């Protein structure tokens, strides 16, 4: 596997970013970010839109009482809060495990372990 080139010691040349960008190591970092963040963004936006559409066009369903005075609309609304908290937590866990170490490794090498 090719790794991102390191900065030549002793010179003040900026790193060759095109070479870094093309390296397999950076490609992995990009994939780890995009393959997680892009589908998840699409998913939560769709889930939010479903909720908005149900609120607009499915009043009867949303008004169904589940327990006491608590109906489907209320539970789905609270569910939006819960999924938001969960997605934030999930992304942060992914980032700490899969993104930060890779990013740190490339950054350290490019900045010449200063």
């Amino acid at each position, binding site marked *: 596997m090719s790794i991102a080139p390191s900065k030549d010691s002793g010179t003040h040349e900026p*790193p060759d*970013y*095109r070479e*870094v*960008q093309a390296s397999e190591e*950076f490609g992995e*970092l*990009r994939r780890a*970010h*995009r393959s997680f*963040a892009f589908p*998840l*963004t699409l998913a*939560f*936006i769709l889930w*939010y*839109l479903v*909720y*908005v*559409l149900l*609120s*607009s*066009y499915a*009043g009867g369903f*949303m*008004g169904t*009482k589940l*327990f*006491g*005075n*608590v*109906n489907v*609309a*209320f539970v789905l*609304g*609270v569910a*939006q*809060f819960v999924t*938001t*908290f969960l*997605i*934030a*937590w999930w*992304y*942060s866990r992914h*980032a700490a495990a899969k*993104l*930060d170490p890779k*990013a*740190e490794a*490339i*950054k350290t090498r*490019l*900045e010449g372990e200063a």
Partner: protein
Amino acid sequence: MSNLQQLHQQGVELQLAAGGAGEHRALIITLFGVFVAATLGITVWAGRQTKGAEDFYAGGRQFSGFQNGLAISGDYMSAASFLGIAGVIALFGYDGFLYSIGFLVAWLVALLLVAEPLRNSGRFTMGDVLAYRMRQRPVRTAAGTSTIVVSIFYLLAQMAGAGALVTLLLGITSEAGKILVVVIVGIVMILYVTIGGMKGTTWVQMVKAVLLIAGTLLITFLVALKFNFNISTLLGAAAENSGQGAAFLEPGLKYGATATSKIDFISLGIALVLGTAGLPHILIRFYTVPTAKAARKSVNWAIGIIGVFYLMTIALGFGAAALIKPDTITASNKSGNTAAPLLAEAIGGGAGSTGGAILLAVISAVAFATILAVVAGLTLASSSSFAHDLYVNVLRKGEASEKEEVGAARWATVGIGTVAIILGVFARGLNVAGLVALAFAVAASANLPTILYSLFWKRFTTQGALWSIYGGLVSSVFLVLFSPVVSGKETSMFPAADFDFFPLENPGLISIPLGFLLGWLGSLLSKEEPDVRKYAELEVRSLTGTGAH
């Protein structure tokens, strides 16, 4: 945004709070005075440590993730969220809840796609990232323009709405008195920003966020106590007292009336969820922390704090609906904006009781603090962009000393603050709904597409950026101009005129896809090749943090 929409929903005649706000005026003014004195003290202290551009724009980048998360919450939870959402829920039940959800979910866009790359690759403004791989001068000009337009609309709405609200809570009815209130708010805000820069403003946001959360927690706890911590009992009491029955707990009372109002709601929903990650005053907060990891942490804190706050607005709104007759709420303010203070009074023992008077004063003072902090954040964002994007990088072609740059930012603050005061005085009589809706819709139409394309699409070009920013900006402003917000309805800015050929109040449904489309099309049709070298630099830096400032 909902808040302000509500603020002026009925035109402008805000009436005096029932029960005579005048009685509590002395207490409210004292508490508010203490807040202003304390925050100005903090500002002067922060100002002593503000020397270079990095201090003024980014607070020295030394705030922790938690501190910045608190400050972001302070910037985001406007008086509007607090009073507006509680008011809509109190009057229309479930439909008010929909706002809270859009405002919160929007933060995931910022967390997953924007906060960390922005922190890694920019220095001071949103324009830093938008113009990174592009020809500097045209794109900086576009980014600066859209930053200032979004911030001024947001600012103007806060000034106008807040002025009216403050007037209401203090029981001032004379025109001169109302103008005086707007001027005082403006002057305090200019002092915060010119003296304290980002450091002072950040501390003000933190203090305000703590006060707002503490005040809301107290009221929520008292409401919960009253209903034995049983949500079903609370909802039942609210539905019964509202006179609407079960319909009060279902969607549709406010937005379900016609086919158009339903589509309008979808448009608003889209603008809310995509607008947040394009709001310049929110984006520049990510520069106040040292690393991308800290930026991530600050968004997580913000999501937690803002989420809990919006959950509490349920207790506030339904609590007000359950304990106060709807007639009493609308008699105090037609749009329900005084529902939260009225609830505070009721839960403290009722009108005329000492407990009621104290709680009302506390909640009103918190609302004032909220208004002040939000306008300060907005002014800082627009003056930063004016100085850094337009003055230094466009007019002076990057050839200005740091001292000149900070000087320009301070003068811009005074200028923009003065403009906001003047517009705020004139806008007192205007329906501000369109202004706030516009701020979110413009942010989502003009800023977000360019931010995302710049960071993630290698074929994006200068022409694409310009088409997207100006196209999103012009289309959203244009559509609002010809919407019922401006003319054709009783609640319009110009009710007598009639040129509303666009039926929706929120332009997002059209202008946001247009902004994305134009960015794509402009790049495809561009004669100029994308700058691959610059893109490589931006991509590597944004993902790894190499060379971050």
